[in-house]
C-alpha cells in the first residue's frame, strides 16, 4: 500500500490566550488560564504537567469537546470548524475509547471522510499503517490487548485525514512492555508522514523521547516552552526544574520543603 495517499497537508495549530472555565460564576474553576501555545508544521509538541494542570482540558477544547471561555484556537490562522474534522484525538484509556459493540473495522470506517470510497481497503491500509493485521477489522475491542487497541485509536485518528493529531496520555494506561511499541509507532508515523501532533503526558521521559518541542503546564498556565533540547538542558522555570529532577531521580533525596504538598513555585 503506497503511503502517498496518507500524506497529510501540514498545518499549524495555535492556542491564542485560551481560557477554559467550568461551573457557574460563583463556583467556577479555571482549568486553562490564558494559554498561548503553537504546534508548528510537522512537529510534535510535548505537553507535560501534573494531573489537574489543565493538559487534557486544553486537548478537549481543541477538538471541540469542551467550550472555550476566552481566547481563540486557530488552525493555519483560521478559527476551527469542528465539522471539518481537521483535528483528531487519541484517547487515554484504550478500554473505553472504542465502542464495545462495534467491530474495529466499523470504528475506523466511521472516522473516514464521508466522500471516501473503497472503505474496506482504506481500513485495511490504516490497520497496516499502525502494524495490525487486516483480520483485526472483523474483531471486537474485547479481543484485542491494550496496546493493540491504542493502535486502533491511532488508526481511527488518521482515518479522518486530520491536519493535527492530539494524543492525550496515550501510553499511561499501558504496560511498560507495550508502551515502547506505541511510542515507536508515534515516532515512526510522525517521521514518515510529517504529522503535526500535540502529545500530552505526565511522564517527562516519554515526552522527551517523542517531542521536538516541550511545553510545561502548571495550574492551568504554560510556564515554559521551547525546543526540547533547550527546555531539558536549561530549564528556566522552577517547576520545570523540579519536574526534571523528579524524572531523573524518582525517589531522590532533594528536600522539597517537608511540610508542603504542592510545590513552592507559582503560588
Amino acid at each position, binding site marked *: 500500500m503506497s503511503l502517498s495517499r496518507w500524506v497529510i497537508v501540514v498545518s499549524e495549530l495555535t492556542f491564542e490566550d485560551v481560557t477554559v472555565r467550568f461551573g457557574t460564576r460563583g463556583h467556577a474553576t479555571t482549568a486553562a488560564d490564558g494559554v498561548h501555545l503553537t504546534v508548528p508544521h510537522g512537529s510534535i509538541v510535548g505537553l507535560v504537567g501534573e494531573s489537574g494542570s489543565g493538559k487534557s482540558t486544553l486537548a478537549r477544547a481543541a477538538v471541540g469537546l469542551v467550550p472555550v471561555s476566552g481566547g481563540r484556537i486557530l488552525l493555519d490562522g483560521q478559527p476551527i470548524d469542528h465539522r471539518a474534522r481537521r483535528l*483528531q484525538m487519541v484517547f487515554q484509556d484504550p478500554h473505553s475509547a472504542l465502542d464495545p459493540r462495534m467491530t474495529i473495522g466499523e470504528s475506523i470506517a466511521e472516522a473516514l471522510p464521508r466522500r471516501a470510497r473503497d472503505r474496506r481497503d482504506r481500513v485495511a491500509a490504516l490497520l497496516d499503517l499502525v502494524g495490525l493485521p487486516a483480520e483485526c477489522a472483523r474483531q471486537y475491542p474485547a479481543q484485542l490487548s491494550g496496546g493493540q487497541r491504542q493502535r486502533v485509536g491511532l488508526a481511527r485518528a488518521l482515518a479522518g485525514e486530520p491536519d493535527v493529531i492530539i494524543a492525550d496520555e496515550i501510553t499511561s494506561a499501558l504496560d511498560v512492555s507495550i508502551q515502547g511499541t506505541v511510542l515507536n509507532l508515534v515516532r515512526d508515523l510522525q517521521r514518515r508522514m510529517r504529522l503535526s501532533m500535540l502529545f500530552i503526558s505526565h511522564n517527562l521521559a516519554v515526552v522527551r523521547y517523542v517531542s521536538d518541542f516541550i511545553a510545561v503546564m502548571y495550574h492551568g498556565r504554560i510556564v515554559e516552552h521551547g525546543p526540547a533540547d533547550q527546555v531539558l538542558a536549561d530549564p528556566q522555570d522552577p517547576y520545570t526544574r523540579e519536574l526534571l529532577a523528579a524524572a531523573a531521580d524518582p*525517589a531522590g533525596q532533594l528536600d522539597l520543603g517537608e511540610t508542603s504538598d504542592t510545590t513552592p513555585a507559582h503560588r
Partner: protein
Amino acid sequence: MKRILRTPLGLSAAVLLLAVLVLAVIAPLVWTDQANAVDTAQISRGSTAEHWMGTDNLGRDVFLRVLVATGLSVRLALLATAIGVLAGLVLGAVPVVLGRRAGRVVTAVVNIAVAFPALLLALFFAVVIGPGTTGSLLAIGFATAPGFARLVQTLVAKVAGLDYVAAARVAGAGRIRLLVRHILPNVAEPLVINATMAAGAALLAFAGLSFLGLGVQPPEYDWGRLLGEGLQGIYLRPAAAIAPGVAVVVAGLAFHLFGEALSKGFTRHTAPVKLRRTEAASAVPTDDDAVLVVEDLRVAFPGVTPVRGVSFTVGQGEAVGIVGESGSGKSLTALAVARLIEHPGQVDAQRLTFQGRDLRNGDDRVHRRLLGTSLAMVFQDPMTSLNPAMRIGRQLAEVAEQHQGASRKQAWQRAVDRLRAVRIPDPERRARQYPHEFSGGMRQRAMIGMGLMGKPALIIADEPTTALDVTVQRQVLRLLRTIRAADGAALLLISHDITVVSQVCDRVLVMYAGRVVEDLPADELHTAARHPYTRALLAAVPDMTTDRDLPLAVIPGRPVDAAQVPTGCAYAPRCPLATERCVTAHPPLETDNGRRVACWHADVPVQVGDRGE
C-alpha cells in the same frame, strides 16, 4: 440466552412465559365460539365435571372464557408496554439529539411526571380519555412512560460520557448517529429487562382498570372483567372468581420472573464474598528472624491460578520490591500475605509466616489483631481507601480504639501525632478535615499515617505512587524511606515502575505470569540482571538518558493470559533466547550466591528486546 436457560429459575420462567404467549395466540382461535356459547340450561352453575370452573349468568363456560381472555389481556399488556417504552425512549433520548438547552426542558418534564404514581396517572388518563379499551391502553402506556424515560436518561447520560462517544463526536458523527449507533446499543440490556418487567406490571394494571369498569367494555372481555363478574357471586361460586385471578397472577409472574432471569443472565453474579481459610499442609518450624516468610504461595480463582508458587523472605527492616506487569500476580501476592483474598479466591502455601506466626491456621481473630497492629497496608488509590464521610483524624483514631483499646481521647491524640509523623502540615486542624479536603499526596500520607497507628513490622505498599504526580511521588517515597529508618519497619513495595523499585528497595523480585523469575539486590539491577525478561524490561522503559534517535527496545508479543499459561517457561514466546527446552520444561528458580533466577539461558549475552518493529 443460553446462560439464562441454564439456571432453574431462567428455564421455568422461560417455559411459563412461552406457555402464556402460545395460549394467547391459540386460545382465541380455537375456543372463541365455545366460550361465547350461551346455554340457558346451565346458568350460574358451580364446578362440575362438564364445566370445571362453573358457568356465568348466561351459562357460558368460565374456564374457556378465561383461556380465551388470555389473548386480549396479553395483547393489551404488550401494546401498552410498547407505547410506554417507545414514549419513554423518545423522552429519555431526546436530550442527546436536541442539545443542552432544549434537552433540559424535556428532562424537567420527565422529572415532574416521575413524581406522580403510575396508577394515579393511569386513572387520570382513563378518566380524561374516557373508559374503554383504547382509553385504558393509552392511559397505561403513558403511565409507564415517565419511569422508563428516567431510566433511559440515566443510562444514556452514563454512556454519553464515555470516551468512545467523544471519539465518535470528534470523528464527525452526527447526534442521531451517536444515539443510534453508539449509545442505544450499549444501554439495550437493562432496557430489555425493564420492558419485560413493565409488561407484567401493565398486565396487572389492565386487570385493575377492567375490574373497576374503566377498561375493556362488554361484549369484549379480559381477565379483569371476568374477575369483576366472578366476584359478584364469590360466596356461591368461588371458582368463577378464582380462575381469572389465578390467570392474572400466573401471567404476571411469568413476565416478572423472566425479567429477573434476564437481569441475572446479563450481569454475571459472583458468589457472596467470604473470607476463606486454607487448610494447613503441615506444621513447619518458623523462622524467627524474618518478618515474613512465604513459601510456594498459590492464589487460585475458579478457572485461573494467577499466582503459581511464589517464595520469598522479608527480613527485619528490609525493603523488598516486587515488579511486574499487570497480570503478573504481584498485587495478589501482597493481598494474600495480608489475608485479603476473598471468596472465591483460594490461597495455598507451603509456608506463610508473619513475625514467626503461622498465618495458615490458628484463630482468625488473633491473626486479625496481629495483622491489624503489625502490618500496614497502603493502596494505590488513596481516595477509595479512605471513608469520604469521616474525618481523617477519626479514621486514624479508630485503628487505635479497635486494636489497642485506647480511649477516644488518647486515640485522637495518637492520630494527630501520626499525621505529624507523616509530615502533614498543621495536623490538629487537618485531622478535623474530610478526605476531599486533602490533596492526593496528602491522602496517601494519611493512609501511611493510618498504618503507623500501631507499630508496624511490615508495610505493604501496593503501587502507592501510581496515582500521584512525579513531584508528589518522590515525597511519598521519601516518607516511606524515612519511616523505615525511624521505626525499623520492613517494606514490601509493589510497583510496575522498575526505576522506583530499584531506588527505594534493597532487593527486587521480578514476577512474570505468577512466578518469581528473578530475585537480586536492587543496586545490581542495571548491571547484573540475568533473566532476559528483567533485562528487556529495563531496556523498554524510556528514561531521561534514552537515545532519542533510536527506536525504543520493545518486548514482542503480549503479556500472558492467566487462564492460558503455557507449559514450560511462560516468557518463552516473547524471549529471543528461547529454545526447545524452554517451551517444554519450566526452569526452576535456582539460588546462587543469594540471588535467584529462573531461566535455562541466564547470563547468555543477548541484545535484549528487538529494536524496531
